[in-house]
């Protein structure tokens, strides 16, 4: 009792008589001293490790929650630093040491971890301050140099004092008036305390902006539209302490006027209300790029994990049709993923791991850029295998008791993608690679839509989207099935019946197609496109008279529609009225057309001229 402080004594607190009996294991950790001799000192042994691996984030103004730049700052966290380096939570580098050599790789050796541990346990001796290495200098401001353009959202987002992580998407306008070539970006989180990482995309459409504008607060919470993409095969993104170097001007990516930078922030609340205003610096090149990488996405969008399944596996692979260089890898999955692997099996029979994370953590989304591009010859098989734990034993499982989980983009759904950035050696190879990969990824996107429709079968928008993908792939029968579902869900929508009619026509079901177009027109008599498409189907069916009427109506409603003008000219020609058919063709030729189409229409005109009696 004699050691008590003033406040303690003055209040004659009952706490003083705490029953410690119930807690035999008490202040063991307090002022822990061991008998180990201090053969390890801060200045000589620990500071070189900390200055190399920690201070890029743990410095005043850095994204780490506290600085580790002096003896005193490190000493005050010694036990903790020993623990988190031993568990490899810090420095945050999730990839197995045997995999690759990546830009910004932060890995402590076992020996370094032992050194920190011995120092923490032996009394955190400072040693000779003269032996202290020089603390790295940190540039304040833009590490890649003064950007050519700096943009930020119109206003800061105020993150509430809550406990659960939050996501916020911003569409940031780019004040450029002409096509611009970009060699890189630098992202500043604005409030490093709460911005855990940022996904960055470019949207050439207004889709993200519309979602942002619809939310009264800065940014919005939801999903990024499909039009928010990685530009020209380049990964964009930010994780604390990492800055992607600028690319060579020959590899720059193109920014079109009217595009927005889309930034999705993963926010980890601090406990207080925090203002978040990120900033992006863009670096331009005045030359058009000569080459562009290609992004391959492997993975499964058919994920459907039963509750309790502790070892659910997805696999995917792709054989390269041309020689490429592997530039970067980005894994993506949500909370239930546990193990992530990517493999390259070369045609000579050798294989190498290109990604391996044993303890996947959704919080550490990162683009892993190879220090030296890895040549992968034609015939190399790239593959991925992810394992998920949807049991109650997985503490990161967001749903307890575990529930069935499907593929989906919301964080409570699951995903499993491994993205590869590949560089083909010439334009022909790149074109071939792009075409193959686009078909493969669209096929998987379709699987994703079908999976989402298992969860929400009454979402007409999803039916519409997947039907369009099916049409693009030439699977008209599947498109019909989804447009039928959509039209049944919104029977009053003239567009739904129009879409169905169009898909039915492509599937060769002309009578059904006519019925759908009539449904559309009964709801919207001035629907020019429906008149045009109905005219086209009627013409194929041989119903020239009615076809002509609908084409005439279509052209009357929309005089500059190429398809309607050509349809009308055909219908007129079929009944022998070549003069008026030629008149329609001439009107069509006054529209902006590409050369091939123009030549085709001219040929048709010639035919009509020759056919005239």
């Amino acid at each position, binding site marked *: 009792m004699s050691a008590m402080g003033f406040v303690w004594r*003055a209040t004659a607190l009952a706490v003083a008589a*705490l029953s410690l009996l119930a807690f035999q294991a008490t202040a063991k950790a*307090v002022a822990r001293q061991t008998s180990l001799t201090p053969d390890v000192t801060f200045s000589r042994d620990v500071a070189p490790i900390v200055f190399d691996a920690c201070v890029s984030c743990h410095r005043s103004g850095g994204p780490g929650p506290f600085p580790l730049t002096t003896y005193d700052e490190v000493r005050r966290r010694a036990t903790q630093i020993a623990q988190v380096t031993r568990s490899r939570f810090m420095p945050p580098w999730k990839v197995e040491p045997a995999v690759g050599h990546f830009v910004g790789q932060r890995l402590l050796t076992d020996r370094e971890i032992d050194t920190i541990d011995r120092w923490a346990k032996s009394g955190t001796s400072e040693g000779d301050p003269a032996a202290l290495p020089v603390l790295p200098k940190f540039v304040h401001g833009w590490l890649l140099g003064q950007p050519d353009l700096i943009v930020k959202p119109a206003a800061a987002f105020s993150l509430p004092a809550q*406990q659960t992580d939050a996501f916020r998407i911003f569409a940031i306008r780019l004040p450029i008036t002409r096509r611009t070539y970009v060699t890189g970006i630098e992202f500043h989180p604005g409030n490093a305390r709460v911005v855990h990482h940022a996904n960055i995309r470019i949207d050439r459409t207004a889709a993200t902006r519309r979602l942002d504008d619809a939310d009264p607060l800065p940014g919005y919470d939801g999903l990024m539209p499909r039009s928010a993409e990685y530009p020209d095969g380049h990964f964009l993104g930010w994780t604390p302490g990492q800055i992607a170097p600028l690319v060579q001007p020959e590899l720059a990516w193109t920014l079109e006027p009217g595009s927005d930078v889309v930034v999705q922030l993963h926010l980890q609340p601090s406990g207080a209300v925090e203002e978040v205003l990120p900033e992006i610096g863009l670096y331009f090149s005045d030359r058009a790029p000569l080459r562009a990488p290609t992004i391959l996405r492997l993975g499964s969008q058919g994920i459907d994990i039963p509750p309790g399944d502790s070892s659910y596996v997805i696999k995917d692979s792709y054989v390269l049709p041309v020689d490429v260089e592997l530039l970067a890898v980005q894994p993506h999955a949500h909370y239930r993923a546990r193990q992530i692997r990517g493999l390259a099996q070369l045609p000579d029979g050798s294989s190498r791991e290109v990604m391996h994370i044993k303890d996947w*953590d959704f919080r550490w989304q990162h683009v892993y850029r190879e220090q030296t591009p890895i040549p992968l010859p034609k015939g190399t098989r790239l593959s991925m295998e992810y394992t998920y734990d949807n049991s109650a034993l997985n503490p990161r499982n967001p749903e307890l008791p575990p529930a069935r989980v499907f593929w989906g983009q919301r964080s409570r759904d699951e995903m499993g993608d491994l993205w590869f950035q590949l560089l083909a050696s010439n334009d022909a190879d790149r074109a071939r690679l792009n075409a193959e990969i686009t078909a493969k990824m669209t096929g998987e996107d379709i699987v994703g839509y079908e999976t989402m429709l298992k969860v929400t079968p009454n979402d007409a928008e999803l039916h519409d989207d997947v039907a369009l993908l099916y049409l693009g792939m030439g699977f008209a029968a599947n498109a019909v099935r989804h447009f039928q579902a959509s039209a049944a869900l919104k029977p009053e929508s003239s567009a739904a019946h129009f879409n169905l009619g169009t898909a039915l026509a492509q599937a060769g079901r002309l009578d059904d197609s006519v019925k759908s177009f009539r449904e559309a027109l009964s709801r919207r008599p001035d629907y020019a496109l429906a008149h045009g498409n109905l005219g086209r189907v009627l013409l194929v069916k041989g119903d020239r008279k009615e076809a002509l009427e609908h084409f005439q109506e279509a052209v009357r409603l929309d005089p500059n529609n190429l398809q309607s003008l050509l349809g009308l000219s055909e219908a007129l020609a079929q009944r022998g009225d070549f003069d008026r058919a030629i008149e329609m063709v001439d009107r069509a030729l006054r529209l902006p057309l590409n050369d091939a189409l123009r030549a085709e229409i001219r040929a048709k005109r010639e035919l009509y001229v020759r056919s005239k009696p």
Partner: protein
Amino acid sequence: MIGRLFLALMFAIAPLSAAEPIRVLVFTTTDCPISNRYAPEINRLAARFSGRVAFVLVYPVAADSPAVIREHHKKFGYSIESLRDTRHELVKRTGVTVTPEVAVMAGDRMVYRGRIDDRYIDLGRDRIKPTRHDLEDALDALLAGKPVAQLETRAVGCILSDLIK
């Protein structure tokens, strides 16, 4: 100033109930990120048990001066009492080892010590939402006159032995 707040608290709490007064000592440090992330939960619990349980923030680190603590209260929206424990009497008597860690006192007896909930499993490993609300359950039990189910849990946070050296 902060010492006197505590003094006032102790006198104020005595007449609340004929039963033993219940206090929650919440050990914290101003620069511990996990501790700070619990501020909304500490405020929620303090409000929920307002008038029945007194929550006290205990600051054992000398660098957390009265001015720093005032700023901390403002930033994290704390309106509960606080106390500096720079000689670590409370740390030693309760045996807490990290921040945030709580000790629940019923009169002069410590009836619970450990985590607020099980959100954090380890440093760098946490749940999206907690599955056990240990502190809240302990307080509910006490107020209902029942024994606390689990007297001690392992708290996860910033290690005090380093911080108060």
